[in-house]
């Protein structure tokens, strides 16, 4: 149900996600403390390639991490009744959905 490679992929993405979450929270707190409104935030984010790279990477890591996690949850909730192929379909669906939603959000904020 959880191959050793998927297990390590989930551990490694978790490790890499930690600084992204902290960076994201720090960004939000700074913006709120600076009293910026939405238009002012967008004026700063638009056209910033570093921000685009930061959030795109964040989205990719989160999509992988969440997809593997949801795969395990589904396997355990079904008590072994879902087969590997079903789990793969669910995980791929979750991963692609997150990737698309995240990608759209990055485009909306940066482009």
């Amino acid at each position, binding site marked *: *149900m*959880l*191959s*050793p*490679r998927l*297990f*390590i992929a989930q*551990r490694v993405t978790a490790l890499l996600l930690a600084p992204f979450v902290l960076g994201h929270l720090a960004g939000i707190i700074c913006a709120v403390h600076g009293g910026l409104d939405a238009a002012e935030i967008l004026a700063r984010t638009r056209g910033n390639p570093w921000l685009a790279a930061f959030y795109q990477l964040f989205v990719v890591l989160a999509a992988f991490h969440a997809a593997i996690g949801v795969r*395990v949850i589904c*396997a*355990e*909730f079904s*008590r*072994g009744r879902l087969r590997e192929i079903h789990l793969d379909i669910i995980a791929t669906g979750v991963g692609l959905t997150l990737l698309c939603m995240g990608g759209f959000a990055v485009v909306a904020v940066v482009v």
Partner: protein
Amino acid sequence: MLTHPDELRVRIWRGDAGGGEMAAYRAPRLPNQTVLDVVTWIQRHQAPDLSYRFSCRVGMCGSCAMTVNGAPRWTCRTHVKEVARNRRDGQLELAPLRNLPVVKDLVCDMADFFRKWRQAEGRFRGGRGRFDAVSAVTAADPHRAAADAAIECINCAVCYAACDVVAWNPGYLGPAALNRAWTLVNDARDTAQSRRLRAIADAGGGCQHCHSQHHCAQYCPVQLSPAHSIAGLKRRVGRAVLRGEL
């Protein structure tokens, strides 16, 4: 139902693989009696057809485990006054261990539990014969110390019954088998390490499925921590994946 202060009300699960239900009994309340004493008294005086397992009665053999007032325990060393306190009515409720098929009454089929020990390569495979020199393993060796911390398992299956991952994933090897594998992973004399590594990283039930919630360690009657051993196995598997060995 009123109970005499010297009387213990006991509910015991009676049935077999086809199903069953709780049956009510009464037994004398005695100082320092164990749960196993109560079961034995009921079998001798009220229910001669009651099935249960025990052997040593001193916490050595690991055969007497049951679900006592909702928690898995070794019954020969569990005092009634210790567990009855947990219930408002001060009474006893006994059922077979969780996560194992029932044979009859309080007896479970342990075949799966021990099959998983073999599946996890829980058998020592040495390479030296009687004419070879003895391997030098000192007590200070950190691998020896790690194995020592996990070695005193009495195969009681209490941890196996306490583990939610076993309940959710019938293929999971479980805390006891993995704890045993950890002692051998740390055994310098063993010659089957690569086989064992593949077994403990099995995609269907390997150590990576453990949620590290430590129910096994909380209930193990001899205070082992299979969860701790499994954390060691996960590190071992992680290194192997990163090196491309798995």
